[in-house]
């Protein structure tokens, strides 16, 4: 469902598609079958993760420390 661009293989386990890492689907057939996940749903997850991490940062990081300049 939906158009899906072919991924570029990083190694035999991981591919990269639209700049995002993804397990090689061939590895997910014996023990754990993958769900039907549309490309849009995948992007929904990616967007929500970014939002969540930003929210966590805003919530807990009152001050962002700089890397010390002197040893």
């Amino acid at each position, binding site marked *: *469902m*939906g*158009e899906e661009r072919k991924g570029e293989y990083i190694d035999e386990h991981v591919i990269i598609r639209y700049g*995002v*890492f*993804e*397990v090689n*689907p061939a590895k*997910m057939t014996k023990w*754990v*079958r*993958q*769900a*039907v*996940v*549309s*490309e*849009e*749903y*995948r*992007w*929904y*997850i*990616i*967007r*929500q*993760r970014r*939002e*969540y991490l930003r*929210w966590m940062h805003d919530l807990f990081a009152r001050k962002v420390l700089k890397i010390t300049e002197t040893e």
Partner: protein
Amino acid sequence: MPTAHTYKPWYKTPWKDDWIPDEVAVIDCYTTFACRHKFCREVCPVYQVTGNESYTSYGFHTALLAVKRGYERLSNLGDTFTYCLQCGACQLRCPDTLFAGDFYRVPKTTNLLVTKTRSEIIRLGFKFKGSDDILKAINKVVEDFETGRMPLVDWAKDLDIPREGEVILFYDYFMATQMTNVLRLWAKILKTAGVKFGIIENPRPTLLYELDYLGEKGVKLVKENIDALQKAGAKTVVVADPHVYVSLTQDYPRFIGSDLPFDTVFITDFVWKLIKEGRLTPKKSVNKKVTYHDPCMLNKVSGIWESPRNILKSIPGLQFIDEDHVTQWYYCCGHGASEVGSFKIMHEDISYQIGLRRLRRVVELGVDTLVVACPHCNQQFNEVKLKAKIDIEIRDISEILAESLDIK
């Protein structure tokens, strides 16, 4: 055309009273049972009110694991599975979805698991709390539709809207019968922007996840709706009810096994685009202090949260106290993902407590108006407000925008 949806291959396998498929037990249930994060628990509106872990995603998956191991039977679990709003918070917050869902493509799908469990209990002839009343309500909706007793297009009588077009404003019985004012305002807003749009004569009830309870009859309704929209020439379907939006974008592709032959857009996304293009300009000042409630079906399930905020920010005079959408993963109005108010039928008091908790948070923000973008949230908050005697105005976003556009 592609939509944002997911479902598991096991979804179509029939279950037995003492048997569930291995894939459900191993992939979904065991991984949740063995998990120590419990983020699903912290984010669950039902848990926040009841404090009972059995009523969380963790509890549901563990209960099904017990069926698999022979310690429990499906027929005894019905009541446990009634304690779910299907708001989607747990399945999104679960690290299986949020941090690994795109990598492994095995995201948590608790909403569908609860739907599947409830519908299998019904299919096997067992009952759960309120199941008879819920089925009665659903069957009445379908019967009223089939016998033509529903005034589905009466709201548009004087608006001169054609019954075809590349853009179709789609709704179902709930808005057409219980939120006609909101539907009329959206139609008038689209007309003001010069959008050429139509409606269809007999939109079938969409019924969200509960369409599954109807079996083949449900699939028939799905196909009829798609056929009617295609015959009307729809290329873009604009939806004003978040529950209908989720039906079209996530449930319908599951039912028919392919993407829909048209794009589905939520009304706030569509209208915000019109504002950005300059086809609509909110000019009149609206002097209110408001906050916005993210409907679960939009924010948590569909990831739509920007456009309603952008619309509110574009209205002059409006003092908008924004509570961010990730914080609102924890909130719910208490209505639940149902067209017929199933959660209220099953657990009226918990539904009220969840709504009250949300309204108290709104009062803490010191606003005079709560803006919603969902007719079900609107109905629920109005009921809770009256019962709890909370002095706050509940307005749909279309009402605020129409006021600024001077549309009556």
